[in-house]
């Protein structure tokens, strides 16, 4: 005489009391955005704020990746075009274009983003090293994440290094 139980009853007996805590595996949070056809991720600790791209004041005789300056919270922010910086084309500023405020140490800079994808937690295990023998852009990448589709992948930027290089390039001139 075996007591008969339904599949649902069996399932409920095994169900947890609360949502299972995330498995203790290391994750990193990235601020993800799109510029041109490229998708980037910047460690979220490097991003303080997102702004609308207002009117920029162009500066004479600056490197072309510096689109100009903008005032934000009483601060003059240089605005960087990542596409020009990485020699991947050139960004255009439209009505929905965003500028995120990136910080690294004592350096602050605005960066043009066409679309902000949002904050995304990426398991460290999924971060793959940047492809070897890549172009100059590769040296500023932490790594890449392959998404489900070819359009879902992310290029994770080493933002501190990027700012440093930018500063060097500007001053060297």
């Amino acid at each position, binding site marked *: 005489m075996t007591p008969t139980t339904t599949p649902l009853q069996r399932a409920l007996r095994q169900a947890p009391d609360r949502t299972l805590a995330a498995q203790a595996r290391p994750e990193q949070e990235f601020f993800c955005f799109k510029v041109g056809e490229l998708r980037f991720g910047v460690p979220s600790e490097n991003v303080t704020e997102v702004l609308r791209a*207002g*009117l*920029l*004041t*162009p*500066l*004479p*005789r*600056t490197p072309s990746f*510096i689109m100009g*300056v*903008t*005032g934000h919270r*009483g*601060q*003059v*922010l*240089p605005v960087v075009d990542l596409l020009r910086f990485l020699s991947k084309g050139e960004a255009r500023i439209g009505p929905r274009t965003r500028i995120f405020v990136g910080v690294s140490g*004592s*350096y*602050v*800079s605005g960066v043009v983003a066409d679309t902000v994808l949002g904050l995304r937690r990426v398991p460290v295990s999924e971060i793959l090293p940047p492809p070897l023998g890549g172009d100059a852009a590769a040296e500023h990448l932490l790594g890449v994440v392959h998404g489900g589709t070819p359009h879902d992948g992310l290029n994770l930027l080493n933002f501190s290094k990027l*700012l440093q290089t*930018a*500063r060097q390039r*500007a*001053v060297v*001139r």
Partner: protein
Amino acid sequence: MSREGTVNGVADDRSAEELGEVDILFFQIGDSEYGTDASQVLRIDRALPDDLTVRELGLPHRGLRAIVFDTPEGEGHLKVDAVNGVRSVALAVLRRMPAAVAAASYAVGICLDEVSRKPVLLIDLAETLKTQGRH
């Protein structure tokens, strides 16, 4: 790439320090607005064909006006489209040029005046002449 902590301009001009503000002459070249130290300006004149134009500031539309300024070498004439006026601007809204940006030498600072729609580049007129001399 401006270094934090250099937000406030250091007052090294006594009169400015005393007044807490400085007179800026705003002018228009093409679609861009610029500002310059009003005390540097001798007068506004009609533009002459030989008057100075600085390409990096943009090309004037018609360039009917000239800002006449004093330099050790004599008068300098900068061709502009319009003079928007002179305003006393509080030191609090003036910023030095972020050093890392390494712009042209005549681009000396930014005015974050609320009146303007966007940051206004501040120009040293005498420096523009030097630049032109180099070219």
